[in-house]
Protein backbone atom coordinates (compact mmCIF):
# COMPACT_ATOMS: atom_id res chain seq x y z
CA UNK A 1 0.00 0.00 0.00
CA UNK A 2 1.29 3.45 -0.87
CA UNK A 3 1.51 5.94 1.92
CA UNK A 4 0.08 9.35 1.28
CA UNK A 5 2.81 11.72 2.33
CA UNK A 6 2.59 15.43 1.65
CA UNK A 7 5.43 17.86 1.15
CA UNK A 8 5.39 21.23 2.88
CA UNK A 9 7.95 23.80 1.81
CA UNK A 10 9.70 26.54 3.76
CA UNK A 11 13.19 27.97 3.95
CA UNK A 12 15.95 25.56 4.94
CA UNK A 13 18.17 27.37 7.45
CA UNK A 14 20.18 24.59 9.06
CA UNK A 15 21.13 21.47 7.06
CA UNK A 16 20.51 17.90 8.14
CA UNK A 17 17.75 15.31 8.05
CA UNK A 18 15.65 14.20 11.01
CA UNK A 19 12.40 12.36 11.39
CA UNK A 20 10.08 12.05 14.38
CA UNK A 21 6.76 13.02 15.98
CA UNK A 22 6.03 16.72 16.32
CA UNK A 23 5.28 18.69 19.47
CA UNK A 24 4.09 22.28 19.42
CA UNK A 25 5.29 25.30 21.28
CA UNK A 26 1.81 26.30 22.37
CA UNK A 27 0.66 29.92 22.10
CA UNK A 28 -0.70 31.60 25.26
CA UNK A 29 -4.30 30.53 25.97
CA UNK A 30 -7.15 33.00 25.51
CA UNK A 31 -10.34 32.97 27.55
CA UNK A 32 -13.46 32.90 25.32
CA UNK A 33 -15.32 36.21 25.46
CA UNK A 34 -18.33 36.22 27.79
CA UNK A 35 -17.46 32.85 29.37
CA UNK A 36 -20.15 32.01 31.99
CA UNK A 37 -19.52 29.97 35.15
CA UNK A 38 -20.19 26.32 34.33
CA UNK A 39 -21.08 25.30 37.87
CA UNK A 40 -21.79 26.52 41.37
CA UNK A 41 -19.36 29.07 42.86
CA UNK A 42 -18.01 26.29 45.09
CA UNK A 43 -17.18 24.12 42.07
CA UNK A 44 -15.57 27.07 40.27
CA UNK A 45 -13.58 27.86 43.42
CA UNK A 46 -12.35 24.29 43.65
CA UNK A 47 -11.28 24.18 40.02
CA UNK A 48 -9.40 27.49 40.37
CA UNK A 49 -7.69 26.34 43.57
CA UNK A 50 -6.73 23.01 41.95
CA UNK A 51 -5.31 24.74 38.86
CA UNK A 52 -3.28 27.16 40.99
CA UNK A 53 -1.93 24.37 43.21
CA UNK A 54 -1.07 22.14 40.23
CA UNK A 55 0.71 25.05 38.52
CA UNK A 56 2.67 25.82 41.69
CA UNK A 57 3.62 22.14 42.10
CA UNK A 58 4.76 21.99 38.48
CA UNK A 59 6.91 25.12 38.91
CA UNK A 60 8.36 23.76 42.15
CA UNK A 61 9.27 20.50 40.39
CA UNK A 62 10.96 22.36 37.54
CA UNK A 63 12.77 24.60 40.02
CA UNK A 64 14.30 21.52 41.66
CA UNK A 65 15.75 20.26 38.36
CA UNK A 66 16.95 23.70 37.20
CA UNK A 67 20.14 25.37 38.40
CA UNK A 68 21.32 28.85 39.33
CA UNK A 69 19.23 31.87 38.41
CA UNK A 70 16.65 29.82 36.48
CA UNK A 71 15.90 27.79 39.64
CA UNK A 72 15.36 30.99 41.68
CA UNK A 73 13.02 32.45 39.07
CA UNK A 74 10.93 29.24 38.98
CA UNK A 75 10.78 29.03 42.78
CA UNK A 76 9.62 32.66 42.99
CA UNK A 77 6.97 31.92 40.36
CA UNK A 78 5.72 28.97 42.41
CA UNK A 79 5.38 31.26 45.43
CA UNK A 80 3.33 33.67 43.34
CA UNK A 81 0.95 30.86 42.33
CA UNK A 82 0.48 30.09 46.03
CA UNK A 83 0.16 33.75 47.08
CA UNK A 84 -2.65 33.86 49.69
CA UNK A 85 -3.75 37.39 48.76
CA UNK A 86 -4.00 36.43 45.09
CA UNK A 87 -5.93 33.27 45.95
CA UNK A 88 -8.35 35.29 48.14
CA UNK A 89 -8.93 37.82 45.37
CA UNK A 90 -9.72 35.06 42.86
CA UNK A 91 -12.20 33.60 45.38
CA UNK A 92 -13.88 36.98 45.78
CA UNK A 93 -14.27 37.42 42.02
CA UNK A 94 -15.77 33.93 41.67
CA UNK A 95 -18.26 34.55 44.47
CA UNK A 96 -19.31 37.70 42.62
CA UNK A 97 -20.42 35.38 39.78
CA UNK A 98 -17.43 35.10 37.45
CA UNK A 99 -16.22 31.90 35.79
CA UNK A 100 -12.93 30.59 37.23
CA UNK A 101 -10.78 31.43 34.15
CA UNK A 102 -12.21 34.97 34.03
CA UNK A 103 -11.57 35.45 37.75
CA UNK A 104 -7.98 34.20 37.35
CA UNK A 105 -7.25 36.56 34.45
CA UNK A 106 -8.86 39.53 36.24
CA UNK A 107 -6.99 38.96 39.52
CA UNK A 108 -3.62 38.38 37.81
CA UNK A 109 -4.10 41.51 35.71
CA UNK A 110 -4.86 43.57 38.82
CA UNK A 111 -1.62 42.44 40.47
CA UNK A 112 0.23 42.90 37.22
CA UNK A 113 -0.89 46.54 37.00
CA UNK A 114 0.25 47.07 40.59
CA UNK A 115 3.69 45.58 39.91
CA UNK A 116 4.18 47.38 36.59
CA UNK A 117 3.53 50.66 38.37
CA UNK A 118 6.29 49.93 40.91
CA UNK A 119 9.35 50.28 38.67
CA UNK A 120 11.51 48.50 36.13
CA UNK A 121 12.47 45.48 38.24
CA UNK A 122 8.81 44.96 39.09
CA UNK A 123 7.82 45.22 35.45
CA UNK A 124 9.96 42.12 34.84
CA UNK A 125 8.12 40.27 37.58
CA UNK A 126 4.96 41.23 35.68
CA UNK A 127 6.20 39.05 32.81
CA UNK A 128 6.63 36.16 35.27
CA UNK A 129 3.08 36.75 36.45
CA UNK A 130 1.78 36.59 32.85
CA UNK A 131 3.50 33.24 32.44
CA UNK A 132 1.84 31.82 35.59
CA UNK A 133 -1.55 33.22 34.55
CA UNK A 134 -1.19 31.51 31.15
CA UNK A 135 -0.35 28.21 32.82
CA UNK A 136 -3.29 28.38 35.24
CA UNK A 137 -5.72 29.38 32.49
CA UNK A 138 -4.42 26.63 30.17
CA UNK A 139 -5.12 24.11 32.93
CA UNK A 140 -8.61 25.45 33.59
CA UNK A 141 -9.54 25.40 29.90
CA UNK A 142 -7.82 22.08 29.16
CA UNK A 143 -5.49 23.75 26.62
CA UNK A 144 -1.85 22.72 26.03
CA UNK A 145 0.71 24.31 28.38
CA UNK A 146 2.42 27.31 26.84
CA UNK A 147 6.20 27.01 26.43
CA UNK A 148 8.56 24.30 25.16
CA UNK A 149 6.87 20.88 25.51
CA UNK A 150 8.42 17.97 27.37
CA UNK A 151 6.69 14.81 26.16
CA UNK A 152 9.42 12.53 27.52
CA UNK A 153 10.65 11.36 24.09
CA UNK A 154 12.60 13.01 21.25
CA UNK A 155 10.45 15.25 19.05
CA UNK A 156 10.42 17.75 16.20
CA UNK A 157 9.63 21.17 17.69
CA UNK A 158 6.98 23.11 15.76
CA UNK A 159 6.23 26.73 16.63
CA UNK A 160 4.83 29.88 15.10
CA UNK A 161 8.25 31.46 15.79
CA UNK A 162 10.88 31.13 18.50
CA UNK A 163 12.09 33.95 20.75
CA UNK A 164 15.53 33.73 22.38
CA UNK A 165 13.89 33.14 25.77
CA UNK A 166 12.07 30.09 24.36
CA UNK A 167 15.32 28.51 23.25
CA UNK A 168 17.40 28.88 26.41
CA UNK A 169 16.09 25.61 27.79
CA UNK A 170 15.94 23.59 24.56
CA UNK A 171 17.37 20.17 25.30
CA UNK A 172 19.56 18.98 22.39
CA UNK A 173 18.99 15.35 23.37
CA UNK A 174 15.20 15.75 23.01
CA UNK A 175 14.76 18.16 20.09
CA UNK A 176 15.37 16.41 16.74
CA UNK A 177 14.65 19.36 14.45
CA UNK A 178 12.89 22.73 14.48
CA UNK A 179 10.17 23.94 12.11
CA UNK A 180 8.56 27.39 12.39
CA UNK A 181 5.57 28.81 10.56
CA UNK A 182 7.10 32.29 10.41
CA UNK A 183 10.59 33.77 10.43
CA UNK A 184 13.23 34.23 7.76
CA UNK A 185 16.80 33.08 7.15
CA UNK A 186 18.24 35.43 9.81
CA UNK A 187 15.62 34.77 12.48
CA UNK A 188 16.66 33.61 15.90
CA UNK A 189 15.46 30.09 15.05
CA UNK A 190 18.04 29.91 12.25
CA UNK A 191 20.87 30.98 14.54
CA UNK A 192 20.01 28.69 17.44
CA UNK A 193 19.35 25.63 15.28
CA UNK A 194 22.70 25.99 13.51
CA UNK A 195 24.55 26.41 16.77
CA UNK A 196 22.84 23.28 18.12
CA UNK A 197 23.50 21.42 14.86
CA UNK A 198 19.77 20.74 14.45
CA UNK A 199 18.05 20.59 11.04
CA UNK A 200 15.64 23.51 10.75
CA UNK A 201 13.07 24.89 8.34
CA UNK A 202 11.51 28.34 8.86
CA UNK A 203 8.72 30.21 7.11
CA UNK A 204 6.83 26.93 6.64
CA UNK A 205 3.19 28.02 6.99
CA UNK A 206 1.96 24.54 6.07
CA UNK A 207 2.86 23.06 9.46
CA UNK A 208 0.13 25.16 11.08
CA UNK A 209 -2.32 22.36 10.30
CA UNK A 210 -0.31 19.55 11.92
CA UNK A 211 -1.14 18.14 15.34
CA UNK A 212 1.11 16.82 18.09
CA UNK A 213 2.28 13.26 17.49
CA UNK A 214 2.17 13.40 13.68
CA UNK A 215 5.44 12.12 12.21
CA UNK A 216 7.41 14.35 9.84
CA UNK A 217 10.77 14.24 8.11
CA UNK A 218 12.61 17.57 8.15
CA UNK A 219 15.18 18.30 5.43
CA UNK A 220 16.99 21.40 6.66
CA UNK A 221 19.08 21.80 3.50
CA UNK A 222 16.18 21.68 1.02
CA UNK A 223 13.69 23.46 3.28
CA UNK A 224 11.16 20.64 3.00
CA UNK A 225 8.96 19.01 5.63
CA UNK A 226 7.45 15.65 4.60
CA UNK A 227 4.35 14.63 6.56
CA UNK A 228 3.97 10.89 7.30
CA UNK A 229 7.14 10.03 5.34
CA UNK A 230 7.75 6.64 3.82
CA UNK A 231 10.49 4.79 5.76
CA UNK A 232 12.36 4.06 2.51
CA UNK A 233 12.44 7.79 1.73
CA UNK A 234 13.91 8.63 5.15
CA UNK A 235 16.57 5.93 4.73
CA UNK A 236 17.46 7.16 1.24
CA UNK A 237 17.80 10.81 2.34
CA UNK A 238 19.91 9.88 5.36
CA UNK A 239 22.18 7.82 3.06
CA UNK A 240 22.62 10.71 0.62
CA UNK A 241 23.49 13.02 3.52
CA UNK A 242 26.13 10.60 4.81
CA UNK A 243 27.73 10.36 1.35
CA UNK A 244 27.93 14.14 1.03
CA UNK A 245 29.46 14.44 4.49
CA UNK A 246 32.20 11.95 3.71
CA UNK A 247 33.13 13.93 0.54
CA UNK A 248 33.59 17.00 2.71
CA UNK A 249 36.05 15.39 5.08
CA UNK A 250 38.61 15.39 2.22
CA UNK A 251 39.73 18.93 3.18
CA UNK A 252 40.62 20.04 6.69
CA UNK A 253 42.63 22.58 8.66
CA UNK A 254 42.98 26.35 8.25
CA UNK A 255 41.01 27.98 5.43
CA UNK A 256 42.92 28.57 2.17
CA UNK A 257 41.97 29.55 -1.34
CA UNK A 258 43.27 27.22 -4.07
CA UNK A 259 46.26 29.57 -4.50
CA UNK A 260 47.05 29.56 -0.78
CA UNK A 261 45.56 32.88 0.46
CA UNK A 262 44.67 32.45 4.14
CA UNK A 263 41.04 32.95 5.18
CA UNK A 264 40.53 32.25 8.86
CA UNK A 265 37.58 29.90 9.43
CA UNK A 266 35.98 30.50 12.80
CA UNK A 267 32.81 29.50 14.57
CA UNK A 268 30.03 31.30 16.39
CA UNK A 269 29.36 30.31 19.99
CA UNK A 270 26.32 31.16 22.09
CA UNK A 271 25.02 28.93 24.84
CA UNK A 272 27.65 27.34 27.04
CA UNK A 273 25.98 23.96 26.66
CA UNK A 274 27.01 24.00 22.96
CA UNK A 275 30.68 24.48 23.90
CA UNK A 276 31.58 20.80 23.47
CA UNK A 277 30.23 20.58 19.90
CA UNK A 278 31.72 23.93 18.95
CA UNK A 279 35.18 23.29 20.40
CA UNK A 280 35.38 19.89 18.68
CA UNK A 281 34.79 21.44 15.23
CA UNK A 282 37.78 21.86 12.91
CA UNK A 283 38.12 25.65 13.27
CA UNK A 284 40.78 28.23 14.02
CA UNK A 285 38.77 29.52 16.96
CA UNK A 286 35.66 31.49 17.84
CA UNK A 287 34.86 34.51 15.67
CA UNK A 288 31.79 35.47 17.65
CA UNK A 289 31.22 34.51 21.28
CA UNK A 290 27.73 35.80 22.11
CA UNK A 291 27.91 36.57 25.81
CA UNK A 292 24.28 37.63 26.20
CA UNK A 293 23.21 34.03 26.83
CA UNK A 294 24.92 34.40 30.21
CA UNK A 295 22.61 37.31 30.99
CA UNK A 296 19.28 36.01 29.63
CA UNK A 297 16.56 34.61 31.87
CA UNK A 298 17.81 36.05 35.11
CA UNK A 299 16.67 38.79 37.43
CA UNK A 300 20.01 40.63 37.64
CA UNK A 301 23.45 40.70 36.00
CA UNK A 302 25.85 37.79 36.72
CA UNK A 303 28.68 38.82 39.05
CA UNK A 304 32.19 39.48 37.71
CA UNK A 305 33.31 36.21 39.30
CA UNK A 306 30.49 34.19 37.74
CA UNK A 307 31.27 35.74 34.34
CA UNK A 308 34.99 35.08 34.76
CA UNK A 309 34.24 31.40 35.39
CA UNK A 310 32.08 31.10 32.27
CA UNK A 311 34.61 32.91 30.04
CA UNK A 312 37.47 30.86 31.48
CA UNK A 313 35.69 27.61 30.52
CA UNK A 314 35.38 28.86 26.93
CA UNK A 315 39.02 30.04 26.78
CA UNK A 316 40.15 26.72 28.23
CA UNK A 317 38.30 24.81 25.50
CA UNK A 318 40.07 26.98 22.89
CA UNK A 319 43.61 26.92 24.26
CA UNK A 320 46.00 27.84 21.44
CA UNK A 321 43.17 29.26 19.32
CA UNK A 322 41.56 32.68 18.93
CA UNK A 323 38.36 33.67 20.77
CA UNK A 324 36.58 36.91 19.83
CA UNK A 325 34.29 37.87 22.70
CA UNK A 326 31.41 40.17 21.84
CA UNK A 327 30.39 42.25 24.82
CA UNK A 328 26.77 42.19 25.90
CA UNK A 329 24.34 42.76 23.02
CA UNK A 330 21.08 43.29 24.88
CA UNK A 331 17.93 44.89 23.58
CA UNK A 332 15.67 44.57 20.53
CA UNK A 333 15.04 40.83 20.10
CA UNK A 334 17.15 39.96 23.17
CA UNK A 335 15.56 41.90 26.04
CA UNK A 336 17.17 41.58 29.47
CA UNK A 337 15.17 41.92 32.63
CA UNK A 338 17.54 44.32 34.32
CA UNK A 339 18.53 46.42 31.32
CA UNK A 340 15.85 46.67 28.67
CA UNK A 341 13.20 49.34 29.03
CA UNK A 342 9.91 47.56 28.30
CA UNK A 343 8.35 50.73 26.87
CA UNK A 344 10.94 51.52 24.19
CA UNK A 345 8.87 52.52 21.15
CA UNK A 346 11.37 51.07 18.66
CA UNK A 347 13.80 48.72 20.39
CA UNK A 348 15.83 47.89 17.26
CA UNK A 349 16.65 51.60 17.00
CA UNK A 350 17.01 52.12 20.73
CA UNK A 351 19.30 51.36 23.63
CA UNK A 352 20.97 48.14 22.53
CA UNK A 353 24.48 46.79 22.00
CA UNK A 354 27.24 49.19 23.04
CA UNK A 355 24.59 51.86 23.65
CA UNK A 356 23.56 49.96 26.79
CA UNK A 357 26.74 51.26 28.41
CA UNK A 358 25.43 54.84 28.16
CA UNK A 359 22.89 53.92 30.81
CA UNK A 360 24.70 51.12 32.61
CA UNK A 361 28.43 51.82 32.29
CA UNK A 362 29.15 49.42 35.17
CA UNK A 363 27.79 46.50 33.14
CA UNK A 364 30.42 46.86 30.38
CA UNK A 365 33.15 47.66 32.89
CA UNK A 366 32.37 44.53 34.92
CA UNK A 367 32.25 42.42 31.78
CA UNK A 368 35.62 43.66 30.47
CA UNK A 369 37.13 43.05 33.92
CA UNK A 370 35.78 39.48 33.95
CA UNK A 371 37.04 38.81 30.40
CA UNK A 372 40.49 40.21 31.26
CA UNK A 373 40.75 38.07 34.40
CA UNK A 374 39.68 34.93 32.53
CA UNK A 375 42.06 35.72 29.65
CA UNK A 376 45.03 36.26 31.97
CA UNK A 377 45.02 32.65 33.12
CA UNK A 378 44.32 31.09 29.72
CA UNK A 379 46.24 29.96 26.67
CA UNK A 380 43.66 31.38 24.25
CA UNK A 381 44.24 34.44 22.03
CA UNK A 382 41.44 36.61 23.44
CA UNK A 383 39.99 39.50 21.40
CA UNK A 384 37.00 41.64 22.41
CA UNK A 385 34.55 43.56 20.26
CA UNK A 386 31.59 45.85 20.84
CA UNK A 387 28.23 45.39 19.11
CA UNK A 388 26.28 48.24 17.45
CA UNK A 389 29.14 50.73 17.11
CA UNK A 390 27.90 53.78 15.17
CA UNK A 391 30.85 56.21 15.21
CA UNK A 392 34.66 56.21 15.28
CA UNK A 393 34.49 57.94 18.67
CA UNK A 394 32.46 55.05 20.09
CA UNK A 395 35.00 52.57 18.70
CA UNK A 396 37.87 54.57 20.22
CA UNK A 397 36.09 54.76 23.59
CA UNK A 398 35.50 51.03 23.65
CA UNK A 399 39.08 50.23 22.59
CA UNK A 400 40.46 52.53 25.31
CA UNK A 401 38.27 50.84 27.94
CA UNK A 402 39.35 47.35 26.81
CA UNK A 403 43.04 48.30 26.64
CA UNK A 404 42.67 49.85 30.10
CA UNK A 405 41.56 46.47 31.41
CA UNK A 406 44.63 44.84 29.86
CA UNK A 407 42.86 43.40 26.82
CA UNK A 408 45.25 44.19 23.95
CA UNK A 409 42.97 43.54 20.93
CA UNK A 410 39.69 45.46 20.81
CA UNK A 411 37.48 45.82 17.76
CA UNK A 412 34.19 47.22 16.56
CA UNK A 413 31.32 45.42 14.96
CA UNK A 414 30.07 46.99 11.76
CA UNK A 415 26.31 46.52 11.84
CA UNK A 416 25.10 50.10 11.59
CA UNK A 417 25.51 51.60 8.09
CA UNK A 418 27.13 54.73 9.59
CA UNK A 419 30.06 52.59 10.78
CA UNK A 420 30.55 51.15 7.27
CA UNK A 421 30.39 54.63 5.71
CA UNK A 422 33.05 55.77 8.20
CA UNK A 423 35.01 52.51 8.09
CA UNK A 424 38.38 54.22 7.55
CA UNK A 425 38.00 56.27 10.74
CA UNK A 426 36.48 53.37 12.69
CA UNK A 427 39.31 51.04 11.63
CA UNK A 428 41.90 53.62 12.70
CA UNK A 429 40.19 53.96 16.10
CA UNK A 430 40.45 50.30 17.08
CA UNK A 431 42.27 47.02 16.30
CA UNK A 432 39.91 45.11 13.99
CA UNK A 433 36.45 45.16 12.42
CA UNK A 434 33.78 42.47 12.32
CA UNK A 435 30.75 42.70 10.03
CA UNK A 436 27.43 41.54 11.44
CA UNK A 437 25.60 41.08 8.17
CA UNK A 438 22.16 40.34 9.63
CA UNK A 439 21.82 43.64 11.45
CA UNK A 440 23.71 45.54 8.74
CA UNK A 441 21.07 44.33 6.24
CA UNK A 442 18.24 45.20 8.61
CA UNK A 443 19.49 48.76 9.10
CA UNK A 444 20.65 49.38 5.52
CA UNK A 445 17.33 48.22 4.05
CA UNK A 446 15.04 49.52 6.81
CA UNK A 447 13.61 45.99 6.99
CA UNK A 448 12.87 44.23 10.27
CA UNK A 449 14.93 41.02 10.64
CA UNK A 450 11.84 39.19 11.83
CA UNK A 451 9.68 40.25 8.88
CA UNK A 452 9.40 37.09 6.77
CA UNK A 453 7.64 39.04 4.00
CA UNK A 454 10.73 41.21 3.51
CA UNK A 455 13.15 38.28 3.23
CA UNK A 456 14.21 39.43 -0.26
CA UNK A 457 15.43 42.76 1.15
CA UNK A 458 17.26 41.01 3.97
CA UNK A 459 18.96 38.69 1.47
CA UNK A 460 22.71 38.95 2.17
CA UNK A 461 23.28 38.85 -1.60
CA UNK A 462 21.75 42.32 -2.01
CA UNK A 463 24.37 44.40 -3.87
CA UNK A 464 23.95 47.38 -1.52
CA UNK A 465 24.86 45.21 1.46
CA UNK A 466 27.84 43.77 -0.43
CA UNK A 467 28.95 47.33 -1.26
CA UNK A 468 28.95 48.25 2.46
CA UNK A 469 31.02 45.11 3.11
CA UNK A 470 33.42 46.04 0.30
CA UNK A 471 33.92 49.56 1.72
CA UNK A 472 34.59 48.16 5.19
CA UNK A 473 37.01 45.46 3.97
CA UNK A 474 38.86 47.99 1.81
CA UNK A 475 39.21 50.43 4.74
CA UNK A 476 40.49 47.62 6.94
CA UNK A 477 43.05 46.55 4.32
CA UNK A 478 44.33 50.12 3.94
CA UNK A 479 44.69 50.51 7.72
CA UNK A 480 46.22 47.05 8.21
CA UNK A 481 43.27 45.84 10.30
CA UNK A 482 41.67 42.38 9.95
CA UNK A 483 38.03 42.47 8.79
CA UNK A 484 35.83 39.47 9.49
CA UNK A 485 32.23 38.52 8.81
CA UNK A 486 30.33 36.85 11.63
CA UNK A 487 26.77 36.98 10.31
CA UNK A 488 24.90 34.04 8.86
CA UNK A 489 26.19 35.05 5.41
CA UNK A 490 29.64 33.65 6.23
CA UNK A 491 28.27 30.09 6.38
CA UNK A 492 26.93 30.09 2.81
CA UNK A 493 29.74 28.51 0.71
CA UNK A 494 28.93 30.48 -2.44
CA UNK A 495 28.58 33.79 -0.63
CA UNK A 496 31.74 33.05 1.36
CA UNK A 497 33.66 33.16 -1.95
CA UNK A 498 32.16 36.58 -2.71
CA UNK A 499 33.01 37.87 0.79
CA UNK A 500 36.62 36.77 0.38
CA UNK A 501 36.64 38.46 -3.03
CA UNK A 502 35.43 41.67 -1.37
CA UNK A 503 38.48 41.58 0.93
CA UNK A 504 37.17 39.89 4.07
CA UNK A 505 39.97 38.07 5.97
CA UNK A 506 38.00 35.78 8.28
CA UNK A 507 34.63 34.03 8.25
CA UNK A 508 32.79 33.00 11.40
CA UNK A 509 29.81 30.68 11.19
CA UNK A 510 27.89 27.86 12.83
CA UNK A 511 29.98 24.64 13.05
CA UNK A 512 27.73 22.91 10.48
CA UNK A 513 28.78 25.42 7.80
CA UNK A 514 32.56 24.94 8.11
CA UNK A 515 33.16 21.87 5.88
CA UNK A 516 31.22 23.28 2.88
CA UNK A 517 32.90 26.68 3.12
CA UNK A 518 36.37 25.13 3.48
CA UNK A 519 35.76 22.93 0.43
CA UNK A 520 34.46 25.87 -1.67
CA UNK A 521 37.49 28.02 -0.81
CA UNK A 522 39.92 25.22 -1.64
CA UNK A 523 38.48 25.07 -5.17
CA UNK A 524 38.77 28.81 -6.01
CA UNK A 525 41.71 31.19 -6.28
CA UNK A 526 41.68 34.67 -4.74
CA UNK A 527 41.43 36.17 -8.25
CA UNK A 528 38.40 33.99 -8.98
CA UNK A 529 36.79 35.12 -5.72
CA UNK A 530 37.34 38.75 -6.76
CA UNK A 531 35.73 38.08 -10.13
CA UNK A 532 32.72 36.48 -8.43
CA UNK A 533 32.45 39.47 -6.06
CA UNK A 534 32.41 41.85 -9.04
CA UNK A 535 29.56 39.86 -10.60
CA UNK A 536 27.54 39.95 -7.37
CA UNK A 537 28.14 43.71 -6.88
CA UNK A 538 26.73 44.62 -10.29
CA UNK A 539 23.62 42.42 -10.11
CA UNK A 540 20.22 44.14 -9.88
CA UNK A 541 19.17 42.30 -6.72
CA UNK A 542 20.12 39.47 -4.38
CA UNK A 543 18.39 36.68 -6.24
CA UNK A 544 19.97 37.61 -9.57
CA UNK A 545 23.38 37.97 -7.95
CA UNK A 546 23.23 34.55 -6.41
CA UNK A 547 22.17 32.97 -9.70
CA UNK A 548 24.93 34.70 -11.66
CA UNK A 549 27.62 33.73 -9.14
CA UNK A 550 26.38 30.14 -8.99
CA UNK A 551 26.72 29.87 -12.76
CA UNK A 552 30.20 31.41 -12.74
CA UNK A 553 31.54 29.56 -9.69
CA UNK A 554 32.63 25.96 -9.46
CA UNK A 555 30.44 24.43 -6.78
CA UNK A 556 28.59 21.31 -7.81
Amino acid sequence: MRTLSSHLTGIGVSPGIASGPIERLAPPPTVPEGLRPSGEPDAELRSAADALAATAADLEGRSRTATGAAADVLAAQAMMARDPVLVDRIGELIREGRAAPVAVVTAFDEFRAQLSAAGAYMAERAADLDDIRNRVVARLLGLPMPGVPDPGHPFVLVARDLAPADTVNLDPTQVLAIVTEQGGPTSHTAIISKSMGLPAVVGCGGVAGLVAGQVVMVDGAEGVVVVDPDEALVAQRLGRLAARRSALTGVSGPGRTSDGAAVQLLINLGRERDLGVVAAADSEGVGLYRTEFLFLERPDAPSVEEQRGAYARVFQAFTGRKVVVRTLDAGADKPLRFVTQPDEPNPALGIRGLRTSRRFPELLDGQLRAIARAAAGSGADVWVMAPMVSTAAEAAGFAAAAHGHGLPVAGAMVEVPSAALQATAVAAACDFLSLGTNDLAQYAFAADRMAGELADLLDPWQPALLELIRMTAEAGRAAGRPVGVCGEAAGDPLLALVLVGLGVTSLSMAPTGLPEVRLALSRHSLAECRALAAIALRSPDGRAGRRAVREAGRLE
Partner: protein
Amino acid sequence: MPQQHAFIGASVGLHARPAALFVQAAARQPVRVRIAKAGGEPVDARSILSVLGLDARKGDEVILSTDAEEGGAALAELAALLERDLDAEP
Protein backbone atom coordinates in the same frame (compact mmCIF):
# COMPACT_ATOMS: atom_id res chain seq x y z
CA MET B 1 -0.83 45.99 68.90
CA PRO B 2 2.86 44.98 68.58
CA GLN B 3 4.89 46.87 65.99
CA GLN B 4 8.53 46.84 65.02
CA HIS B 5 10.62 48.97 62.67
CA ALA B 6 13.42 47.62 60.47
CA PHE B 7 15.74 48.91 57.74
CA ILE B 8 16.17 46.77 54.62
CA GLY B 9 19.68 45.28 54.64
CA ALA B 10 19.72 43.39 51.34
CA SER B 11 21.72 45.16 48.65
CA VAL B 12 19.11 44.31 45.98
CA GLY B 13 16.32 45.57 48.28
CA LEU B 14 13.33 43.49 49.32
CA HIS B 15 13.22 41.85 45.89
CA ALA B 16 14.14 38.51 44.31
CA ARG B 17 15.67 36.06 46.78
CA PRO B 18 15.50 38.26 49.91
CA ALA B 19 11.76 38.82 49.31
CA ALA B 20 11.18 35.09 48.88
CA LEU B 21 13.08 34.25 52.08
CA PHE B 22 11.15 36.90 54.01
CA VAL B 23 7.74 35.72 52.75
CA GLN B 24 8.57 32.09 53.57
CA ALA B 25 9.64 33.09 57.08
CA ALA B 26 6.44 35.12 57.56
CA ALA B 27 4.33 32.14 56.49
CA ARG B 28 6.03 30.00 59.16
CA GLN B 29 5.02 32.36 61.99
CA PRO B 30 2.13 31.35 64.28
CA VAL B 31 0.64 34.86 63.90
CA ARG B 32 -0.44 36.90 60.84
CA VAL B 33 2.12 39.63 60.16
CA ARG B 34 1.73 42.73 58.01
CA ILE B 35 4.48 44.85 56.51
CA ALA B 36 4.37 48.49 55.35
CA LYS B 37 6.82 51.06 54.11
CA ALA B 38 7.00 54.06 56.43
CA GLY B 39 3.84 56.06 55.72
CA GLY B 40 2.39 53.37 53.40
CA GLU B 41 -0.47 50.85 53.55
CA PRO B 42 0.34 47.61 55.40
CA VAL B 43 0.15 44.40 53.32
CA ASP B 44 0.06 40.69 54.19
CA ALA B 45 3.67 39.58 54.76
CA ARG B 46 2.85 36.07 53.44
CA SER B 47 2.02 37.49 50.02
CA ILE B 48 5.03 37.58 47.70
CA LEU B 49 3.16 39.78 45.22
CA SER B 50 2.20 42.32 47.90
CA VAL B 51 5.73 42.35 49.33
CA LEU B 52 7.29 42.84 45.89
CA GLY B 53 4.72 45.58 45.25
CA LEU B 54 6.15 47.55 48.21
CA ASP B 55 9.33 48.05 46.14
CA ALA B 56 11.38 48.48 49.34
CA ARG B 57 15.01 49.33 48.51
CA LYS B 58 18.15 48.87 50.58
CA GLY B 59 18.05 51.24 53.56
CA ASP B 60 14.27 51.84 53.35
CA GLU B 61 12.40 51.80 56.65
CA VAL B 62 9.59 49.25 56.98
CA ILE B 63 7.10 48.62 59.80
CA LEU B 64 6.08 45.12 60.82
CA SER B 65 2.83 44.73 62.76
CA THR B 66 0.42 42.07 64.01
CA ASP B 67 -2.98 42.00 65.74
CA ALA B 68 -1.83 39.19 68.04
CA GLU B 69 -0.66 40.48 71.42
CA GLU B 70 1.78 37.55 71.71
CA GLY B 71 3.33 38.34 68.30
CA GLY B 72 6.36 40.29 69.53
CA ALA B 73 8.79 37.39 69.04
CA ALA B 74 7.60 36.81 65.47
CA LEU B 75 8.15 40.49 64.63
CA ALA B 76 11.62 40.46 66.19
CA GLU B 77 12.62 37.40 64.17
CA LEU B 78 11.34 38.87 60.89
CA ALA B 79 12.90 42.28 61.57
CA ALA B 80 16.27 40.65 62.17
CA LEU B 81 15.91 38.78 58.88
CA LEU B 82 15.11 41.99 56.98
CA GLU B 83 18.20 43.73 58.30
CA ARG B 84 20.59 41.03 57.05
CA ASP B 85 22.09 41.27 53.53
CA LEU B 86 20.22 38.15 52.44
CA ASP B 87 21.43 38.39 48.89
CA ALA B 88 25.09 38.19 49.87
CA GLU B 89 24.56 35.07 51.98
CA PRO B 90 24.96 31.66 50.33
